[in-house]
């Protein structure tokens, strides 16, 4: 089943792709898989709901995430994110 969700972006770590108060529409669908380079919203166990870019994917489907801005929290600090925490892939941005 195709599911979509809208999130309001808070912060500047995804600059210049996203800025504070942008909206992102993210979705999951049958056969959904994150791909390297796409934006995803994940429900991180420690960092809560975050929007980041997929930097790498390991063989078990875990994601390595990073921000577009140099000021973003590092991939190391985010850690590998299990597939089950993916809220959805960003399919549309509404710019502020």
């Amino acid at each position, binding site marked *: 089943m195709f599911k979509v*969700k*809208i999130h309001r972006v*808070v912060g*500047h*770590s995804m600059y210049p792709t996203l800025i504070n*108060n942008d909206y*992102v529409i993210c979705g999951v669908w049958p056969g959904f898989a994150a791909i390297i380079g796409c934006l995803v919203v994940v429900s991180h166990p420690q960092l809560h709901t975050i*929007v980041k870019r997929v930097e790498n994917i390991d063989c078990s489907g875990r994601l390595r995430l990073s921000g577009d801005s140099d000021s973003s*929290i590092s991939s190391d600090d985010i850690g590998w994110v299990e597939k089950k925490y993916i809220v959805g892939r960003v399919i549309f941005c509404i710019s502020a």
Partner: protein
Amino acid sequence: MLHSLTTKIDRILNFEQASAHCDIPCKIYDPSGAQVAALSVIRFIDLINELHNKDNLSLADHAQLARLVREKEIHAKKVKDEIVVIWGDYFKQPQFEAFPDASELVHNILLTGSLCKQHISRDKAVVLLNLVNDFAEMFWATKGIDIYIATCPYPPSESVVYPKLA
């Protein structure tokens, strides 16, 4: 237009936030804020005791006392907040391995900070400063930076741990 429409819908439906927080501000850690706040607690207690030594308190003195007590508590709370942020955000496994007593020290600071809110004991405030100095020494050690101890060049003229940066 699309954004303003979405914002209006957001006000009704309250969309969940997706954080894109930056890390740069969070990497600026320095215990000096806690040290200055601890010194301030001592200073406010000294000023409270100066009022205590007066034979009669005027209305202005009462107002001053209220202000001093309020500021003492604000700064004791600030000590706790500053330390908790460094301990919670900066300290990670390598720092805890190097300083296994870090959490106990932080806990002592928090307890002593609360005592300084509750009381007007100068001794307790000095203990708070000493604990914060211990924390500062540990913090700079995690960064491989030597420290020196000097008397702060302003009241309450107490010993403070400073980093040797040059």
